[in-house]
């Protein structure tokens, strides 16, 4: 290699490095921040500020953990993303709530495939083209005008829809609704099977949401979670929020031999009678209820 060739290489390398310097200067402050690098700082600004979902103040540094103003995209490479995120909106929650231990609130058993797979039986899950995404139910920043008046739904950052979007039988969630009732009404955005016999039409096509009458039913079924009560993942009750994300029970259902809960187990099939017997047979000593005397 001649001296001239070496010199040419050196000059080309210097030129490339100079260009890189310009690029860095251009994008410098637009990059993402790691949550770990600012969590202590944010805590010092607002001791209640342990979440990226709220408690934003002018001096906190949270926005830039998820959004890069001028250099968004996978790995902050500036090639574009959704809402200036590292990923698509559908996957924006994944890092903290599924695949890492960043949040204490883990869902989908910490397995990405449980969220982004095709196992609709046990999960609200997301597959491109069959979307039930986090962002469909949750408003990540709890923007107040996108929240319902119900405090529990807001705490779960479940966002409101226009009044007519809910089932007519359910009505709009109100401030005084109990958490389970509010959630049940809220579910009718997609699942319209809300039947309150005291206000709805008799002989509806869906199971009534009523209190126990101790003749036909020995447990109340006033809300969705009365039946869709599976709360385990791999037989372990997680810290929170198995339902309605991903549970051991098919369609989040559980089965039992009676209202006492004896023999309780996640339903492996939505057709199992144990799902019904859980309420329709007296559990103390199954002498009352469905199918005891025949």
């Amino acid at each position, binding site marked *: 290699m001649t001296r001239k060739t070496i010199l040419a290489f050196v000059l080309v390398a210097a030129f490339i490095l100079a260009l890189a310097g310009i690029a860095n200067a251009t994008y410098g402050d637009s990059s993402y921040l790691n949550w770990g690098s600012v969590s202590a700082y944010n805590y010092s600004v607002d001791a209640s500020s342990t979440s990226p979902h*709220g408690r*934003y*103040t*002018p*001096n906190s540094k949270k926005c830039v953990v998820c959004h890069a103003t001028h250099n968004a995209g996978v790995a902050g490479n500036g090639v574009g993303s959704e*809402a200036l995120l590292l990923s698509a909106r559908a996957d924006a929650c994944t890092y903290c709530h599924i695949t890492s231990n960043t949040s204490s609130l883990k869902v989908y058993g910490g397995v990405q495939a449980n969220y982004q797979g095709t196992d609709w039986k046990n999960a609200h899950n997301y597959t491109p083209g069959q979307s039930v995404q986090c962002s469909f139910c949750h408003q990540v920043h709890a*923007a*107040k005008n996108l929240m319902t008046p119900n405090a529990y739904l*807001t*705490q779960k950052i479940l966002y409101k829809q226009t009044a007519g979007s809910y089932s007519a039988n359910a009505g709009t969630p109100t401030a005084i609704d109990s958490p389970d009732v509010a959630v049940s009404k809220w579910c009718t955005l997609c699942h319209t099977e809300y039947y309150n016999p005291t206000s709805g039409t008799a002989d509806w096509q869906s199971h009534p949401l009523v209190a126990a009458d101790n003749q036909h039913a020995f447990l109340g079924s006033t809300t969705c979670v009365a039946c869709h009560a599976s709360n385990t993942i791999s037989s372990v009750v997680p810290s929170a929020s198995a339902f309605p994300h991903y549970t051991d029970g098919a369609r989040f259902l559980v089965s039992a031999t009676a209202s006492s809960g004896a023999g309780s187990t996640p339903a492996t099939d939505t057709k199992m009678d144990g799902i019904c017997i859980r309420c329709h047979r007296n559990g103390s000593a199954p002498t009352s209820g469905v199918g005891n005397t025949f």
Partner: protein
Amino acid sequence: MKKTALVIALVALFALAITSSAFATYGDSSYTAWSSVKADNSAVNGSQSPHGGYAQNTKKCVVCHAVHNAGPSGNGVGSEALLLSSRADACTYCHISNAVSTKIVYGGTATNYNGGSNVRAHDASGWANLFGCKDCHQVHGATADMTGNTYLNSKILKKGADYDWGIVTAANPTTAAAIANEASSSVAVSKWCTRCHPYFNDQQNRDSHVMTTTIDNGVTYSITNACESCHNSTKVSGVVVASAFPHYTDGARFLTSATSTTGAGSADSTDTKMDGICLRCHRDGQVSALGVGVTE
């Protein structure tokens, strides 16, 4: 003794003759103080600026350029474009270090311009000295170097060979023609900035913040259709100064912070990562406190 005195006298005379010769050679090529020709120039055509209003009878060129004796202090050892200094520092005397111009930038402090503080300034020492006044401004407003946009012309911002590094859309093209015809001064500037900062973005889901006049209550409460929507720090040392942006401002990257779109708690941003930069638009500021992150 008489001979000695005669020799000394001759030598002295010779020396003076040489000096006189030097004065004769360089004399008319030296710089002229603006103050000494200001009245003459004004008398010709009312011209108060060295940036324009040149006429045959005005005396402006020689304020900055010495035809045969250029260089620092007019010492004739060379400079750039026959100036007293380099091109990068040519504006310093009038617009930074002295009150010759009414338009003082960089807080009147040369180190704010040439001191390495890129966070708060467009700084000539930054980026391997690739940047200076001349990289944005065409000091004489030469028509061929101008964009054709009235506002940009008034700021003697020169046109570039390209804008936006290829990120051009049909709705908001940043071509030279589109910049020339842009009616909004702030949008024209924003498109112009794309010569170096390729962030002009009229579409969602790109790599840079969308620039739009659409307000989506629930998500945002102010428009962000121009760079200055966010980069709007206007102060130097706590005082509002004309043309603080985009030269040197109190705000990091010329950004400001506030608690909401009302501007309550407005302050110059000390850090580009502060949430207040976002809350300025993404929170509405009413008593009901709509917007981002107020309910948890």
